[in-house]
């Protein structure tokens, strides 16, 4: 005998919302709120602040995929939280990586140039949002072999780490037409065949065909990536197996298009730190937020400032910062922001990133963000502020250590006094040059870590990294 259970209104949440597993700081669940294209208005920002205060101990962090992550979420409150997110049109990552098999992968928040449409006419955020709408909750794309990461840039450079995405769409203008050069097969986690940077497909996809193009790539991943095991299920493995030529052929077969061949092997570097002029004569200003760590109070303050000094909208950045747009007077904005934020505008503070290993439980003290803060302080004491430090708490590389100028990844180290939290120190990574970092020294902790970090800084400052290889 079977009894049907009516799930009623709950059905609208299935496939759109999920809680992730935490195992640190006494948090059991996190909520990773996808912010489409990283663009959020003051009203939604206040509502997320309210969620943080009610359900997440007032804590919030900006992730390096332009999402906002809350912790200490009690699963008993999940339906209330989902209803509030549903009302404002937001969804969450599906966190299918918890399954042991190659299944239930979803399209993650699509990383998008934070100044899309503001410093050039090429506004890639419309397409990014359209694709987000299409994939969110769409049953045809909720059981991918593994998660799928997409990035878009249209500012003329790579401000989004295209090369670490399954497909990174590099916006260019070619013979007077807007479109994209796709880079495919990036993923720097430990899964097979190891940390891999995306490769250019060497084609030009006109803007009008980009939606169908990305959809086709996701479908190729869904239909052809290995389901044999979780470790082999990322798209990079298929790209490695087929080669870029094979992937290109399958995409063209699927879309029926024949894309023009172009010779673009690397994106140009770009960042949107500090302030600058928009095409409409107004300004943008990026507030450095080390590690993306914010609070309900700070989110509300940011919302107030966005309304007071701009259009009420802010953009979250892939470097975990917050960019104010449509600002009339940057100095006035900065004066106001300095009431709450300690503003230090250096590459060190803008471009360093750290993952949430303190919450996921992959590290013991010092956690990824702690070690980042410690090394940033160390650099500043020595007057060094032009380096970037990327810290991951584990080989899954959420802190992108493989593409850091300086990278750190946690590892447990056996000592005479027992197991301690150590870090491998890496150097020379570059996401725009599509260059993986090399190991400087492994298993460092305590004073040894600081000492080796010092030596590495010296080599970087002397420009002698090549000799260190």
């Amino acid at each position: 005998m079977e009894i049907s259970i009516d799930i009623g209104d709950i059905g609208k949440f299935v496939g759109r919302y999920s809680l992730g597993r935490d195992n640190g700081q006494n948090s059991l669940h996190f909520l990773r709120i996808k912010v489409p294209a990283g663009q959020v208005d003051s009203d939604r920002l206040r509502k997320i602040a309210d969620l943080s205060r009610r359900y997440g101990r007032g804590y919030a962090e900006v992730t390096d995929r332009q999402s906002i992550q809350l912790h200490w979420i009690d699963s008993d409150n999940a339906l209330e939280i989902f209803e509030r997110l549903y009302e404002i049109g937001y969804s969450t990552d599906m966190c299918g990586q918890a399954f042991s098999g190659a299944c239930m992968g979803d399209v993650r928040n699509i990383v998008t140039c934070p100044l899309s449409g503001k410093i050039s006419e090429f506004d890639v955020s419309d397409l990014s949002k359209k694709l987000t709408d299409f994939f969110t909750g769409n049953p045809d794309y909720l059981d991918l072999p593994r998660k799928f990461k997409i990035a878009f840039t249209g500012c003329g450079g790579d401000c989004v780490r295209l090369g670490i995405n399954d497909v990174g769409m590099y916006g260019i203008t070619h013979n007077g037409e807007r479109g994209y050069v796709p880079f495919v097969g990036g993923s720097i986690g430990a899964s097979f065949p190891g940390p891999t940077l995306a490769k250019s497909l060497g084609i030009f996809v006109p803007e009008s065909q980009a939606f169908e193009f990305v959809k086709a790539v996701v479908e190729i991943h869904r239909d052809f990536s290995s389901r044999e095991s979780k470790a082999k299920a990322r798209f990079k493995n298929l790209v490695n197996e087929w080669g870029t030529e094979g992937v290109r052929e399958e995409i063209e077969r699927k879309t029926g298009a024949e894309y023009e061949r172009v010779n673009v092997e690397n994106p140009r570097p770009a960042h949107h730190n500090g302030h600058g002029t928009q095409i409409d004569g107004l300004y943008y200003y990026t507030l450095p937020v080390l590690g993306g760590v914010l609070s309900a109070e700070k989110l509300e303050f940011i919302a107030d400032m966005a309304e007071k000094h701009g259009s009420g909208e802010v953009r979250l950045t892939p470097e975990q910062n917050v960019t104010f747009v449509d600002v009339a007077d940057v100095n006035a904005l900065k004066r106001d922001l300095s009431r709450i934020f300690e503003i230090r505008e250096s590459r060190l503070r803008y471009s360093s990133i750290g993952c949430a290993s303190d919450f996921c439980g992959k590290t013991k003290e010092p956690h990824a963000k702690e070690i980042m803060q410690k090394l940033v302080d160390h650099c500043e004491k020595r007057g060094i502020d032009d380096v970037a430090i990327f810290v991951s708490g584990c080989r899954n590389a959420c802190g992108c250590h493989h593409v850091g100028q300086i990278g750190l990844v946690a590892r447990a180290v056996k000592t005479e006094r027992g197991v301690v939290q150590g870090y491998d120190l890496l150097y020379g990574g570059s996401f725009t040059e599509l260059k993986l970092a090399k190991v400087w020294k492994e298993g460092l902790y305590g004073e040894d870590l600081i000492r080796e970090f010092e030596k590495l800084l010296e080599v970087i400052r002397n420009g002698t990294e090549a000799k260190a290889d």
Partner: protein
Amino acid sequence: MELKLRQIESDAFELDVRGNTCPFPQIFTELALKKIDRGRLEVITDNPPSARDLPIVLKRRGYRVESEKEGDHWRIKIWK
């Protein structure tokens, strides 16, 4: 989405929530428990966070709970 409670013994039911991420196995289990007057509910989940959380949450609510791994999934037995 259709959720079915299958009777496996005179006083025992099975709920298969495989493929659902946290917190839906918990939410669906609670809906299923409302349908059962008394007896045993066996929930099948392949989601590790839910396999961790379900026994914690249900014991907090006063249920007797046993959990066992069966290949690639867990069977969580709840007595009402």
